[in-house]
């Protein structure tokens, strides 16, 4: 029987050896820092985490203040709206893209992916230029005679939402596109053949069958949206989100323990959404 396992044992040993550097990295630079944050959130304010320290839930209790809760709720609301708008704009885009010709499709794919990988910071900066009081958008509107005085776009809730959608929409388009792309077109044709109107066929066939893509897109947009922080800074208007709150705890108030507690709550929200998604049969969210 030793012989039987000889081959496989060699393979397992090799796999283990190959995986080792990544496993080490994952433990030292992913697990350990996060455990440290968890620890910090559990010791008294002003203390750093050590194994002897007395544990307390004070930092978490402190989060129950009404204004903090409003910030969390506000962040969730913004994330929800971002997801909704991304879906409404992104799905039709993904649909049209998937139904385009082969050559055009790969071109479109590339055009969608490139901004996806470029600095969000720089792209948001572009919006700031566009929307500023004496910027191009106001100039065009004035030129068309639609407005007389410049509109102050920056700082409005709408401008933050716009910037959020702008940053996140690729995450919606890509999974939706691959879902529509995989969809067997003959199914839609069969529905049409059986007498469905195009709209009906879409609702009865296309939509349910591309639902996995839609769900994946929603999770991929919603999760980072909750933690986004520098966007509202740049767009102005003083909208405070969880991210801003955590940053201020760290850098202004210098209360690392409360900041850590907030981070843990953020991680739990994020992980919770992801887990619910996976439990309800969602696909693995990798690179598409």
């Amino acid at each position, binding site marked *: 029987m030793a012989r039987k396992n000889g081959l496989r044992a*060699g*393979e*397992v040993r*090799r*796999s*283990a050896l*190959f*995986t*080792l*550097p*990544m*496993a080490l*990295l994952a*433990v030292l*630079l*992913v697990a350990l*820092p*996060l455990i*440290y*944050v968890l620890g*910090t959130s559990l010791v008294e304010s002003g203390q*750093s985490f050590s194994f002897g320290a007395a544990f307390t839930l004070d930092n978490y209790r402190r989060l129950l203040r009404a204004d903090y809760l409003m910030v969390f709720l506000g962040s969730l609301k913004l994330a929800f709206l971002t997801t909704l708008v991304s879906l409404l*704009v992104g799905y039709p885009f993904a649909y*049209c*893209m998937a139904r*385009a010709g082969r050559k055009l499709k*790969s071109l479109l*794919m590339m*055009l*969608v*992916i*490139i*901004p996806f*990988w*470029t*600095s969000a*910071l*720089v792209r*948001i*900066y*572009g919006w700031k*230029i*566009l929307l*500023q009081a004496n910027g191009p958008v106001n100039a065009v509107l004035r030129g068309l005679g639609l407005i007389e005085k410049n509109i102050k776009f920056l700082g409005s809730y709408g401008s933050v939402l716009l910037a959020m959608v*702008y940053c996140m929409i690729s995450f919606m388009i890509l999974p939706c596109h691959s879902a529509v792309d995989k969809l067997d077109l003959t199914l839609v044709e069969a529905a049409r053949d059986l007498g469905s109107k195009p709209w009906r066929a879409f609702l009865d066939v296309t939509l349910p069958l591309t639902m996995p893509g839609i769900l994946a897109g929603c999770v991929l947009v919603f999760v980072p949206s*909750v*933690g986004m*922080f*520098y966007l509202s*800074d740049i767009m102005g208007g003083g909208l405070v989100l969880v991210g801003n709150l*955590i*940053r201020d705890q760290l850098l202004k108030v210098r209360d690392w323990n409360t900041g*850590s507690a907030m*981070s843990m709550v953020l*991680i739990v929200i*994020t*992980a919770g959404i992801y887990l619910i998604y996976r439990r309800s049969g969602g696909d693995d*969210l*990798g*690179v598409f």
Partner: protein
Amino acid sequence: MVCKRKRKIFSPIYLTLVLIILYLPILMVVIYSFNSGRTIGAWQGFTTGWYTRLFHNALMADALKNSLILAVLSAGFAGVIGTLGAIGLAHHRLRASGFIESLATLPMMIPELVLGMAYLALFTAVGVKLGMGALIATHTTFCVPYVFINVKSRLIGMDPAIEEAARDLGASPMRVLRDITLPLIMPSVISGMMLAVAMSLDDVVISFFVTSAETTTLPLKVYTGLRSGGTPEINALSTLMLAAIFIFVALSQLLRARSDRKLYASK
């Protein structure tokens, strides 16, 4: 066939419209880097002066050098670590493979802010010196998933019989790795590493936390510049960054498309 015609018109218009909105802000940054005004405000005339200024700025040169070193080294490390990990985990031979995989790809899922603060807290507590070393370690960590996922999906998509055929023809496992597996996954490794370079060149949040006063990177410069309102010089800098990232991403996409065409042609 009214509907068909309607869609034929709607589809290109909609696609174009969204793409314009997608690219317009990027274009603005580029255009305004040639604005002769001192602020990002109204357009005042064309100049390339900001680029000249940028190139004569020693601090900027330093930031550029740091960013490039950081990007190349972390992408390189991530390339090796992620590829080995993907080969090790692709066939689920290890009991802990699911756990290691989730942990290693976690940086993609959790907010950068949380990760950044966690690094700062841990490094200070353990006494790790902030600066280039810490930057390389953390950038490698968040670059690994891009290489790992890219390579693993290629490995999973590969017909296992190809590697078996090489064994069958007399190649040892290491020989199979060298002759068959590595050449076949190389395009994914390289495209993953290019994405990693782009991610590293792009990162503000984590760098912000783990860098030292002496070490600054281009995105950090952009960030501080933006927070103080933004100047055409920052536009010029952003444009250069955009150009670098565009090139990397475009190359990575082209490479992938080409290798796909070569290996999976005749469909």
